[in-house]
Each structure stands twice: as C-alpha cells, then as structure tokens.
C-alpha cells in the first residue's frame, strides 16, 4: 500500500480530485451520476485520449511534439481525398490509410530530430508551421462535407434505455480509443522497446552507451504518435462528420496540458497510461459538470484553466510532505 502511494502518487492525487469533483457534481445535478452521462463523457473524450496516449510515448522518450494535432488535420484531409480516389473504402482501409499517413508525418519529425540533432520542440514547432501553413494554403481553408457514408454513419456498439427514456450509447470511437489505450499500455510496459523508451527518456547518453539504438527510439516514439494522430484524426472526422482544416488547430496544447497533468514529465522517463487517461478525463469531467450545472459556456475555459492550475499546485506538493507517515524509512525529507 505504501509502495503504491510512492509509485503512483500523481494518479492517486488525480483520482482523488476526480472523485471529489464527481461527488460534488452528483449532488449538484441529477443528471451527472448516470450511465448515459458516463457514456457521453467517454464518447466525447475518445479523440483526446487517443492523441494523449500517443503524446505520452513521445514525452516518455524525452521529446515533445507540438505538431501532432495539425498533422492529424493534414491526415484527415489527405485520407478523405485518397479514400475518394480508391472508391470509398471502409473502416479497415480508412484506418490503414490514416495510420500510414500519420506515421509518415511522425517520421519526418523523427528524421529531423535524429539526423540533424534538432531539439524536438524546435523541430516540431517548425513542422507545426509548415504543416498548417501548407494545409491552409493548398485547401484555401475549404472544408470537406462530402465524406463516404461509412465514415459519417454512427456506429452504436452498445445501447441501453435508461429509466427516463433516454438512451445510453457506446459508439465506435470508444472502442478504437480502448484499443489504442490498451496497445500503448502494452507497448510501454510489456515490451523491451517500452523499457528502452523509458531508459532513453531518463538518460539518453546512458541509454546510448548501454547499446540502445537511439535512432530507433526516435522513430518508434514519433511514429507511434503519428499513428495515434492519424487514427485520432479519422475518428474526429467521423465524430464531427466533416473535415475542417483548422478544426484541430490549438488542440495540441489542450492535450499536452492533460498529459502533463497526468504525471508525464517534460524531460522524459516518467509517465503512465493511467495517469494520462485520468488527466484527460479530469478536464472533460469538469467541462461536462459545468455544462450540466447550466454555467455559461463562456465561463467554461476560465474554470478549466483554474482547475488545472489548482490541480498542478496540489499534485506538485509532494504527497509524502502532506502525509509524513507514508515516508519510507531513511528517506530524506
């Protein structure tokens, strides 16, 4: 138990905050604590969670990526055009095309970072501007509404009628999100590559001397994020039923905030899938709660910003300091 507190301090702090907010909301509104609302939360946070687990891998490997959300927009647009060319396609070909394009865009970042030793934040800010500038230049900001039928059709995987007649539904994005979360979890905790990513993020030079292939680490981390960005982009197009070139512009910072809130360290070597999912959920639960409490939508962001700021302050104060009896013997205060 004590060990659990030490290794998962951020996740426990986040979970406590979520439970606290959840309890308050359950009493403040009658709609919050219901199956329908929980499913709605999952449906709406799917895209952000897919992005978040991808970004987590890059953060663990010691990098940062600003360009992934814009890359997802590029993938959406290219995938929509490509799928139209090959005559429609379906979910399988769609995911392969989007994932493949995403990996290519991620590999560009990895190539710049590895080959020319450009620091990841510099390289990805450059590619952010290049991707977005070129996307807006070539598309002239025109959206695509004419998407294939399979992409715009809602796929309900599980539904149940609640007592008041409303339907609780789980849709396809949630399944895709669950698969992405599970594979990312398996990648970083159950494979040698995952261990190597943590080691590389914690101490790149040490990892290199230890015989870890540094180039492979860059390509795996940014390729994985590219894959997730591509998949996330396709799912977002499915969810919104349109492709708008600047729809995801600015999303990168929201996702980054959620992932770092979930305990991933900027600088590498630290972070868990659970924390990252909890970070995204905290933000969406806050937003969902405000919505149900009929707070003006204009005030949403203000409260969310204040919540994150408070959560950082709370979770950065080390848990051992608040609970001295949890400190393991011999450890410095």
């Amino acid at each position: 138990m004590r060990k659990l507190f030490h290794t998962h301090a951020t996740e426990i702090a986040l979970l406590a905050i979520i439970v606290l907010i959840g309890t308050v909301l359950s009493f403040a509104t009658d709609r919050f604590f219901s199956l329908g609302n929980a499913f709605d939360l999952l449906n709406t946070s799917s895209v952000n969670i897919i992005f978040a687990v991808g970004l987590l891998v890059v953060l663990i490997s010691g990098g940062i990526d600003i360009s992934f959300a814009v890359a997802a927009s590029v993938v959406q647009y290219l995938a929509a055009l490509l799928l139209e060319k090959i005559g429609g396609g379906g979910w399988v070909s769609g995911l392969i095309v989007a994932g493949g394009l995403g990996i290519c865009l991620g590999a560009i970042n990895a190539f710049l970072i590895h080959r020319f030793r450009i620091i990841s934040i510099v390289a990805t800010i450059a590619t952010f501007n290049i991707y977005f500038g070129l996307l807006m230049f070539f598309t002239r900001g025109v959206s695509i509404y004419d998407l294939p039928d399979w992409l715009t059709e809602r796929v309900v995987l599980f539904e149940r009628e609640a007592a008041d007649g409303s339907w609780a539904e789980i849709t396809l994005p949630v399944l895709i999100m669950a698969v992405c979360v599970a594979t990312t979890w398996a990648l970083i905790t159950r494979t040698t590559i995952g261990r190597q990513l943590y080691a590389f993020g914690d101490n790149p030079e040490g990892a290199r001397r230890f015989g870890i292939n540094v180039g492979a680490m860059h390509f795996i981390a940014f390729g994985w994020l590219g894959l997730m960005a591509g998949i996330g982009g396709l799912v977002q197009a499915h969810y919104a039923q349109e492709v708008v070139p600047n729809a995801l512009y600015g999303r990168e910072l929201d996702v980054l905030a959620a992932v770092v809130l979930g305990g991933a360290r900027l600088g590498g070597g630290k972070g868990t899938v659970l924390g990252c999912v909890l970070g995204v959920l905290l933000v969406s639960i806050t937003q969902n709660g405000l919505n149900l409490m009929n707070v003006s939508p204009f005030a949403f962001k203000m409260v969310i910003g204040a919540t994150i700021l408070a959560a950082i302050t709370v979770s950065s104060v080390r848990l051992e300091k608040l609970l001295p009896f949890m400190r393991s013997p011999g450890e410095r205060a």
Partner: protein
Amino acid sequence: MTLMKRIGNLIGTEIIGPGLAFVAVILFFGLAAPRFLSSATFGSVAFQLPELGLLTLAMLLPILTGGLNLAITFTANIAGLTVAWVLKSHGGVDASPLVFAVGCFLAIAVGGLSGTVMGLVIAYTRAHPILVSLSMMIFLRGLGEFLTRGGDISGFPSFIQPIGHGSVFGMPIPLLIFIACVLVWHVLLTRLKLGFNIYMIGSNIEAARYSGVNTRKALILVYTLSGAMCAVAGIIMMARFNSVRVGHGESYLLITVLACFLGGVNPFGGFGRVVPVFVALVVLQLLSSGLNLMGANQHLATAVWGILLLGVMIMRWLIAWLTLSNTHKG
C-alpha cells in the same frame, strides 16, 4: 580589431544564423520582386513588426530561464480589455488622455499580476512552466471570452490611433516603442543583476541556488516582467486595430517561440541575446512582406517561416559537423 571584438561581444555569435538569413532574404526578394526594395515594404514591416516583436520579447525572458510563457497572447488581450474597460467607463470616445494613461498603468499592472501568479506557482511548486502557463492561458482566454461574450469592444478616443498608426520624424510610433522595449531588455540582460541571474538559472537552476541566487525571486520577477511586456503589446494591438477582441494575435503564440529559436536562443535556456532575436523578427516580417508582394498569402508565409527555422537549424548542425571533422583531421 578591438572594435570588431567589442561589437562581437555586444551581439554574440548567435547573430550568424539570422544575419545570413537576413542577407539571403534581401537578395532573393530584391532580385525576384523589383518592388521589394522600396520604402513601402519597409513601411509595412515597420508597422507590423512591433506586435509580434513585443510578444517575442515577453516570450524571451522565460525561455532564457529554461521555461516558456504560453499565456502571452491572452495576457495581451486581457491587458487590452483593461484599457478598454477604463476608457469605456470614463467617457468612451470623449475620454481624456489622463484616463488613457491610468488605463495603461492598470493594464500593465494586470499583465504583471498574471505573470506574478504564474511565477509564484512555478517558483514554489516546481511545476513545469509549460503546464503552468498553459493553464493560465486557458484561464485568461476563458476570462476574456466570459467578459466580452466573444465580441469586439471598440469606440475609443481618437488620440489613441497615432499610437498604432502615427509617425514621428518618419519613424512609426509603434516601432519606436518596440525599439525602446528592445533596449530595456538588452540593458536588463547585459547590465543588471537580474539579467545575470536569468542566465544562471537557465544554465543550471540548482547551481544558481547553491551560489546564493534567490532563484524564486528571480523567477517571479521574470514572469512578472514578461506579463508586463505582454500588456505593452496588448495596448499597441488595441491602438492598431482600434478595437479589442479576445483572440486577436492568437496565432502569434508559437511564432514568438519560433522567432526566439531563429534568433539563436537555446531552447533549454541559459544562452541567447536580444539583438539576434530582433534581427530574426525583421527577417520573418521581410519574408512575409516579400511573399505578399509575389502574390502568396499569410498561410504560405507561415509555412516558409517553419522551413526557414529548419534551414537555420540544419545549417548550424552542418557547421558543427564540419568543424568537428576538421579538428579530428588536425
């Protein structure tokens, strides 16, 4: 020789990247677009430079300490709102210059306050500046949208317009304000104790703390000054657009980071000077004006800015690689 050395010391070796880019841009557009080398181009650059430039100055100090301030654009908006609110509540179009002065003072105080809050959280909780400033950015955007309901605020006294559009002795007033701020930052970083501490913190915050630098105080001051500089940018933006809207200049956020890196500032902090960043800003504006003359739009210019940053970084890598292989041979 000594003069050259002194100039070299004053501006540093970081000038090479943006300096070469400056020459390349002038040569390229000078040959490609005959109308490029005209006073009209330089006029448009001079009027567009200050907004991005002041925000870049606000970004520079946190980057030098190894952090970032992602709240700059919305801090500028909130500061602009403060001036607008003071003017609106004291006569609107008929407000006196004194009211405007009070408004500016309050705006700088508000900008500084948002910076102080960030500085306090960063200095005392050791949370990463990206996260802290990001949540401050989300908060300020929300606050601004809440107060304005997403709309514009306009209808200011006419004496404000010259601050955005006027000229004194042929020099645009916003440019003069910007150059004054550049000088203040240059003096701060090269002559004052705080400047020295900023570089020390950026190089190694623990070592700085053990050497007796009050790192907390320095960090709080850095973010406060950054917020105050955002407020200056907000006032200039208000005068230029003659209105305040939350979201004005939002796209500048990552461009300011790009400008700092282009100006040779180390992304991990500790190294970087004001003058090369200034040159980098001029290069960016010249590029977008030149591309405009050739019929391209701002989006293409944004992409070219990104390519330019990559080009400068790859060139740096090449130089380092060549010098390394030379020393190995010798």
